[in-house]
């Protein structure tokens, strides 16, 4: 028995070595670095240098606020929208269903850089189609990139555009696994379609919705590309800077690895806390 295990471990050695060098060590190393003052060479041990800064750093709280804001507003809006799309896609009245499914899913296939560039053009102050449309219906044009609120809205619109269809497809798959006879029985009992949705579809779909929520929350916690490319590295003035961007800026622009490590550990802690809270909230009643 022990011999068999030893053989197994020998086969695993290459992977375990790589895992130790490229996963375990960086995790330990960045933890140690987070306790060092890395602004000037040589680095020195000073636990309060980074962690003390973190507690009172407006930039950190700004990034945290932005990330949570997206989490609280964009994720529910997107999931609700995805749910509506899924219901429509699931309708037996719909013709050319395959085409619509593809159309809703297509944004995920588009490269992030390409779609970010297109969004920048569409929302351009002077030449963008969005401001032209606003003007044509008598609304004032919006300076999307230079004011905090519109810039934040823009990020949410972009992320929603990209991921709503993806979630809709997952939800659609969940809906199609709900047995048809439940609805038939409800229809015989003269339960309206709307009530069927709220009392049959939603409860039976709950595990799928939770899955979508978990995916979206993880995605939002790691949000980087859109604020990096669309609003130009979290602009205006950090108005759309997320935790991921703050970490990148501190680590690789300011070369302040100690503080970047402290931010990284805070992000990880936050993600664990949110996930635990979520599991607790959505636990099956005993």
């Amino acid at each position, binding site marked *: 028995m022990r011999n068999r295990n030893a053989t197994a471990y020998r086969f695993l050695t290459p992977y375990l070595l790589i895992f130790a060098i490229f996963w375990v060590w960086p995790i330990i190393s960045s933890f140690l670095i987070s306790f060092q003052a890395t*602004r*000037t*060479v040589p680095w020195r041990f000073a636990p309060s*240098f980074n962690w003390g*800064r973190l507690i*009172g*750093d*407006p*930039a950190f709280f*700004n990034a945290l606020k932005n990330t949570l804001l997206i989490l609280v507003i964009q994720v529910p809006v997107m999931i609700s929208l995805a749910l509506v799309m899924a219901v429509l896609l699931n309708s037996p009245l719909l013709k050319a269903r395959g085409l619509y499914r593809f159309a809703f899913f297509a944004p995920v296939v588009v490269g992030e850089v390409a779609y970010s560039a297109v969004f920048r053009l569409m929302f*351009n*102050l*002077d*030449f963008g189609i969005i401001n032209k449309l606003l003007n044509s219906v008598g609304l004032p044009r919006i*300076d999307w*990139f*230079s*004011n*905090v609120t519109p*810039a934040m809205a823009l990020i949410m619109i972009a992320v929603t555009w990209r991921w709503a269809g993806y979630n809709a497809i997952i939800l659609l798959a969940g809906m199609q696994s709900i047995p048809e006879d439940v609805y038939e029985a409800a229809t015989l009992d003269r339960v309206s379609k709307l009530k069927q949705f709220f009392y049959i579809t939603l409860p039976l779909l709950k595990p799928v919705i939770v899955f979508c929520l978990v995916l979206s929350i993880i995605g939002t916690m790691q949000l980087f590309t859109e604020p990096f490319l669309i*609003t*130009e*590295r979290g*602009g*205006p*003035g*950090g*108005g759309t*800077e997320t935790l991921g961007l703050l970490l990148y*800026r501190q680590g*690789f*622009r*300011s*070369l*302040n690895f100690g503080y970047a490590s402290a931010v990284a550990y805070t992000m990880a802690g936050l993600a664990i806390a949110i996930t635990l809270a979520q599991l607790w909230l959505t636990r099956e009643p005993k």
Partner: protein
Amino acid sequence: MRITMTCAALALALGSAPAFAQSGEITIWSWNVAASSLKATIAGFNKQFPDVKVTVQDLGNQPTYDKSIAGCAAGGVGLPDIVTVENGEAENYWSQFPDCFVDLHTLGYTADDQKKFPDFKRTELEVGDKAYAMPWDSGPVAAFYRRDFYEKAGVDPASIKTWDDFIAAGKKIQAANPGVSMTNADFNGDSEFFRMISNEQGCAYFSEDGQSITVNQPKCVDAMTKVKEMKDAGIISSADWGTKITNNTAGTVATQVYGGWYEGTIRTESAGENGKWGVYLMPSLTADGPRAANLGGSSLAITSASKNKEAAYAYLKYTLGTNEGQITMLKEFGLVPSLISALDDPYVAQGLPYWGGQAVWKDILGTLPKVVPSRGTQFQSDAEIIVRAVQTKYLAGGYPDAKAALDDAASQIAAATGLPVKS
């Protein structure tokens, strides 16, 4: 005339070159027009040093920084012989990786050589008695304007001496040319107007010794106040780098205030507007103000990992340290020489057809001696992001006045860097 000039430069270079001939290969990392202009100087360099093979790699601006930093962190692995270093970012390199680059003094860079460049270009490149890089191009600020729009409004650019004149002129020009903005600023991802006016007024984010924070000093407060006045007067519309170019070409902007390197961008990107553009000096806060500032600019540094340091230094000395090298780059790609003697080159005094016959370089380069140093320090990127955040909030009315805004910025920068705020 040109032949005598070349001969003079040749004699100068030969006189100071080491007795033995250089040979070998050197590689340079750079970006965009900067890389192209380096390539343009190779032919001239090879006339003096035929055995040195120079390869310029155009990596792009950001990748050059990222790859160089990674190379330094790895102890010099994979680095080329010469790296292009933006002045604003320079101190990040020296402070984190003091051994990654060669002290140019060890290769024959003398105090006399240093004096050929203005002080403001050297502050970030020299730490203590070490010189880590040789100044390359600089960004003396100028106002690039559309002659036709100004004429239509009856505004004489020579009458614009202060930013208040600029605002008044802007209102006239916008009234006379519907759909045209007086100027553009990148309120999304930059603070260029604040930095330009502050530098003109002699105020920077940090003190010249890099030991304290000066962003809330009175002159900086004046600069920030003026930016808001311009924004509130409606003469600035926001536009990033790309949109500014689009505006230039579409004829929806009357003035761009930028570093001198913008000459090449206007000339090449808006080639169709030939003859319509002109240049005047940047306005100041007072009529007798300096009207000179610097925005941007780069330098070249030699890596410690280089196997051909002497050849690399010879290249630096030719390209950056002679009029011939610097003027080649100015002519081809509009890169502004920071070599003071290049001011006297005949090309600088020439009227240029694109600019309606105006000798723009004479005007732009003439401001170089008046530019005061603005030290980036290794905390520049931290400070910059804070200033942008504060500027955004201030312009939106989030502070009672510019003093309160910059006090907030100063205390945030202090928290981020550990430096004291100068009282």
